[in-house]
């Protein structure tokens, strides 16, 4: 029997180990897997590479990983939100490596990892600092740069509702990076607010099919 539901957050993040690359869902404060992140902090791993759109604000969420100094590198598009104080501090002191990507390249590179795409050409970034040293090709009279997939050991995301097969639906714009990250993580762990019986989710309304999900843990908002 397939049962992807795990009983504890500890179990949900058991695959996050020292030196891992971890995808973390969310945009702003919407869709951040705060409980899974807290479990990673509690676990006490180090030297993580995280791939996530923002650097968090204050002390919570993604920022809590930075505050703990367990992140050696961040791959991101917009690490400078109001209150991204921990990222600023680590960046200024040289304690964290930053790979900055246009947001669309970021999400397309995550998808590419899940989709078996070896690399893709995009015009986004050409002629800018974020196109420096990238392989280029002229396609239809327009310069493109070559972008490679962003693979990860673990993806941590949040969703609204799951069943035991790991099928997911999301809540409005909290969907954001969830579906692409779920595909790209070697192991994908999801925190959800509700768990329903198999067959309760309409097959045509499921956004992330369970094949992309390994662990589901129920949390409170």
């Amino acid at each position, binding site marked *: 029997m397939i049962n992807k539901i795990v009983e504890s957050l500890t179990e949900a993040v058991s695959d996050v180990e020292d030196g891992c690359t971890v995808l973390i869902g969310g945009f702003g404060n919407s869709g951040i897997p705060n409980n899974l992140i807290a479990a990673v902090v509690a676990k006490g791993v180090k030297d993580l590479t995280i791939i996530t759109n923002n650097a968090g604000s204050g002390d919570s969420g993604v920022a809590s990983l930075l505050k703990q100094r367990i992140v050696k590198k961040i791959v991101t598009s917009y690490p400078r939100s109001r209150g991204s104080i921990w*990222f600023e501090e680590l*960046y200024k002191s040289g304690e964290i490596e930053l790979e900055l990507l246009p*947001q669309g390249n970021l999400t397309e590179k995550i998808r590419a990892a899940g989709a078996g795409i070896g690399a893709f050409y995009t015009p*986004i970034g050409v*002629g800018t*600092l974020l196109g420096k040293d990238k392989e280029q090709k002229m396609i239809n009279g327009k310069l493109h740069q070559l972008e490679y997939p962003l693979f990860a050991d673990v993806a941590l995301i949040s969703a609204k509702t799951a069943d035991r097969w790991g099928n997911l639906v999301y809540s409005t*714009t909290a969907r954001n990076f969830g579906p692409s990250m779920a595909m790209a993580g070697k192991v994908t762990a999801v925190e959800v607010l509700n768990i329903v019986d198999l067959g309760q989710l309409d097959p045509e309304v499921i956004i992330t099919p369970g094949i992309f999900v390994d662990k589901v843990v129920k949390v409170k908002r």
Partner: protein
Amino acid sequence: MTFKPLSKEEIAKKVANDLRDGQYVNLGIGLPTLVASFLPDDKEIVLHSENGVLGVGPRPLPGEEDIDLIDAGKDFITLKPGASIFHHTDSFIMMRGGHIDVAVLGALQVSQKGDLANWATNDETYPPAVGGAMDLASGAKKIFVIMIHTGKDGTPKILEECTFPLTATEVVTTVYTDLATLDVKDGQMFVREMSPGLSKSELIKMTGAKLNF
């Protein structure tokens, strides 16, 4: 100086009036968000937010926020009838695939051939952040820039060549400022309109780019 610069709201209104019925429009963070308040009632304009919404509606009333439902500026929003929600990669396809008709963007600098600089200065104290700026600037069919014509100290921000890091090259369609509306065509900048009372020589003095009248 006998001329009167437009207020930010007046610039936003001008942009709003240039949007056409049925267009899909993305409003960047900052000044561009003002445009939403001036969309004409007789046109149906669909606002895109790159975190995954088409059909962005007005801000919710206090206490009626859906905690998950935000726009790219991370502010709470509502949805209009006809709105749709999609994931990030699909949302960026709308920009990158050329499906968005107009992106209204703020700018630090614009060059006369339409280069846009709006994501970084040369100040390296703060970490850089780009977000969807490049995807929007390179991907949307038309780029409307909305900006104050010069820096607070009068430094020109519309230039022959940008000095700040570029967001994208040769993408700007029209620049709307407190002093003028400037169209970029075939690598040159044309003055479409000037603020009442402003003279050509005054505009030229406050502009670093070569202007065609």
